[in-house]
């Protein structure tokens, strides 16, 4: 099927009127970025895929609340974070590491670094996942919003319905745990170099 060429604003306007293909344009355009957000939140590919689905379903149902002058991607991120929080709260915490198929999914072009680098990157990922796993969904969302998506404290407060101090303390706790979790790796790296 031929894809429509619409910018986000035009696609949202059509989708609000019930245009299915216009909404598909938005799904195709933003599903990977929402996946990255969801993966960082949940730490598992399967869960991330479920969160992506929940995000677009919720976004469609709440499309009438989206204000035309806002940025759709930013609004969708907020929906995504909240879906991820709800998803994590509704499921028992999982300790399992990433499924083996994740390594299979990485394209050949990404396999440039040395074995040492890959092992080190894997250790970082595992350490970060351990540290993130010890946070509540809300703390995790606040940290990821600030660190990876450069939300301001005010934006985090609005997205997560938090007071300013609560948002800051969520970030403080997350960073402290990151420092603890990553310190041994940093020492190892420094010794090697």
């Amino acid at each position, binding site marked *: 099927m031929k894809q429509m060429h619409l910018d986000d604003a035009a696609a949202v306007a059509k989708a609000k009127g019930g245009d299915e293909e216009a909404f598909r344009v938005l*799904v195709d355009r933003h599903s*990977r970025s929402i996946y990255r957000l969801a993966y960082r939140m949940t730490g598992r590919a399967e869960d991330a895929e479920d969160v992506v689905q929940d995000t677009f379903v919720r976004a469609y149902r709440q499309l009438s609340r989206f204000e035309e002058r806002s940025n759709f991607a930013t609004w969708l991120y907020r929906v995504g974070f909240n879906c991820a929080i709800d998803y994590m709260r509704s499921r028992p915490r999982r300790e399992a590491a990433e499924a083996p198929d994740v390594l299979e999914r990485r394209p050949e072009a990404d396999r440039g670094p040395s074995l040492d680098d890959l092992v080190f990157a894997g250790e970082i990922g595992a350490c970060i996942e351990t540290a993130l796993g010890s946070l509540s969904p809300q703390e995790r969302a606040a940290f990821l919003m600030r660190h990876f998506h450069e939300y301001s404290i005010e934006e985090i407060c609005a997205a997560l319905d938090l007071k300013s101090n609560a948002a800051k303390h969520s970030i403080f706790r997350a960073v402290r745990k990151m420092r603890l979790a990553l310190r041994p790796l940093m020492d190892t790296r420094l010794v090697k170099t």
Partner: protein
Amino acid sequence: MHTHPSDDDLILHAYGDCRPEVARGIDDHLEQCAQCTAVWTELRQTLQLVDAADVPEPDAGFERIVWARVQQELFAPRPARWSARQWLPIAGLAAAALVAMAVVTTHVDRQSASAATIARTGVDARGPERVLLTALDGHLEQAELLLVELLNAPDAPDRIELAFERASAEDLLSSGRLYRVTAHHQGDLRLARVLEDIEPVLVDLARSPDQVDRRSLQSLQSRIEDQALLFKVRTAVHEVRERQQDLITVSEGPL
């Protein structure tokens, strides 16, 4: 700033969340205090390391799968159910025709291609395909059983127990995703497509409670019937078995 900034102050500073006069005070202090500078450096390096954590990219058909799942949830019509009496004979005939076509074409094509490969290299390079087919055989058979059980679930007036089916769907879901990715990588798009088609139903079943009401069960049954999922899975099972047989024949070779 005369006193040492706290760790929290440094975190806010690292993210640019301090007021300008506070930020200037921290910078001034860091120039004079080796102890705080060491903490600051370690904090910055930690935050840089966090950036190094990789997020795996989903495979090429990801957008299509997302759309199929979203479309099913938001836009799928709920037409009246076809009765098994209506669609089974059609599906049966179509299945027979498809299987017959698949058998003839795959047998001829694959036998000659494999024989040529082995003759050229002396090695059967189709080991990965054999592994995938063997795994898929069991997987699809289990999926077929699950779909049959769902279609034949007792039409109780109140709650219907689906704990076993739900657990089975969970198992199938995680393994199915792995096989789908593998099938994509091996260019086996037809099998990948079948796995994609059954995935939304497995997702919904895996996420449903152990007991569902009559309407939820009927909704699942309608989706299985409307999309001819049982037919697709059975056709795939036949194809996988034929291909396994072809591989065995080719590897044994002419005597």
